[in-house]
């Protein structure tokens, strides 16, 4: 090994699947938390990928899990959905135009996904709190774990609306992003939600 490689080698080898298992184990210890809301600090593909991987990991151990993407600002790109799959976007449910079963995309045994089909610029106005509460309560009754993902707090405050219906929050940021001032603002917003912050995640660490 070259000298420079030796000097710059990270002390800790971060293994992705190992970390996901760790997060899962720590979440499982919180027995009251069944509806987990991931709050992103910034819009990031890496953060969305982490959220989806953590959600999937629960289905692997036999927990009936549903991942709900309530990001109406953009299309969900972290998962390939068969063109033949027939499903309604979550926006239809929020507009009272669809049933819960029509939303579900069956991914694997114990793992379903609900996402949007269309995008909207004024997503916050479209979040019908009553319908959202009904949706989440229904999912809570049918699944062991419900994972919610929303647009980042840096983009809009949808996360604060959705956050009212969760049991616990996981806040996700990228390595050294965003700035201290933005993080402080997010910290106080989350505190105001008055929901337990079960933990923090850091994604996109460069090694």
């Amino acid at each position: 090994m070259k000298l420079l490689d030796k000097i710059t080698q990270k002390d800790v080898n971060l293994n992705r699947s190992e970390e996901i298992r760790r997060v899962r184990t720590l979440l499982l210890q919180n027995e009251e938390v069944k509806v987990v809301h991931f709050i992103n600090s910034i819009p990031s593909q890496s953060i969305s990928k982490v959220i989806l991987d953590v959600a999937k990991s629960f289905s692997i151990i036999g927990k009936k899990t549903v991942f709900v993407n309530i990001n109406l600002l953009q299309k969900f790109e972290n998962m390939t959905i068969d063109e033949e799959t027939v499903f309604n976007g979550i926006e239809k449910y929020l507009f009272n135009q669809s049933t819960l079963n029509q939303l579900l995309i069956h991914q694997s045994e114990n793992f379903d996904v609900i996402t949007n089909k269309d995008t909207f610029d004024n997503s916050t106005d479209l979040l019908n709190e009553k319908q959202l509460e009904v949706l989440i309560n229904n999912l809570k009754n049918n699944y062991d774990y419900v994972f919610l993902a929303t647009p980042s707090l840096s983009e809009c405050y949808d996360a604060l609306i959705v956050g009212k219906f969760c049991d616990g929050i996981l806040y996700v940021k990228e390595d050294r992003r965003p700035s201290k001032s933005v993080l402080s603002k997010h910290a106080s917003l989350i505190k105001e939600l008055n929901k337990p912050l079960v933990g923090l995640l850091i994604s996109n660490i460069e090694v």
Partner: protein
Amino acid sequence: MQNQQYEEEISLLELLDVLRRNLKLITMLIILGLLSSIILSGISFYRNREVNSYSVETQIILSGSLNNEQGITLIVNTLSHVSSLNSALTTLKIENSNYKLTSQYDSDSGLLAYKVEGSNSETITQISTEIFKLVKPIIEGAFPSVEIREFQTSEPVLVPKINENNVNWLMNIILGIILSGMFAVFYVFAVYFMSPYIITDNDFESLFDSKVLGKFTGKTPKSKLRKLLEVR
């Protein structure tokens, strides 16, 4: 309020912990400082190395009456004056002016002598001859009755020279280590406290009053230089 607390709480333990985490970077910068001091000392040593110096003495023996004091002063001054040396250098088309010219007169023996010093033994002989050509008409003009009986130039002689600018290697190395150590500590603290981003997990945890459950690597690897200079 939470933010204010976060910015104000700086303890000595935290400062020491910042230094401990960045020990590798500090060590690297100190080694760089040490190497720089060695290289600079080497350059200084090379530049201040001892240069051989030669001198050539020319004696002019005059015969006849030498009672014109003003004339003698003029000759001695001319021989010592820098313009005589410059004139000789110009005639010989020598650009380097690192030469020295001195003169003396012994009234008892009538011996007029001048000495040229320089690093090149051949050039100083040529300069000496040119100066004689310059001073000869002045002697003939000042002392019409005096005759230049003998003109004699010695062989170039090596002049022992003490090098006063010796390089103090130990002092330079100690200074290099101290200065680079101070710079490294300043760099680490400056980056750590002035960074607009949260650097450590502890800071992130204390801001949110929660624990970091997981850390996930990204796809883009960090450049080696960035890794090396990164404050943790």
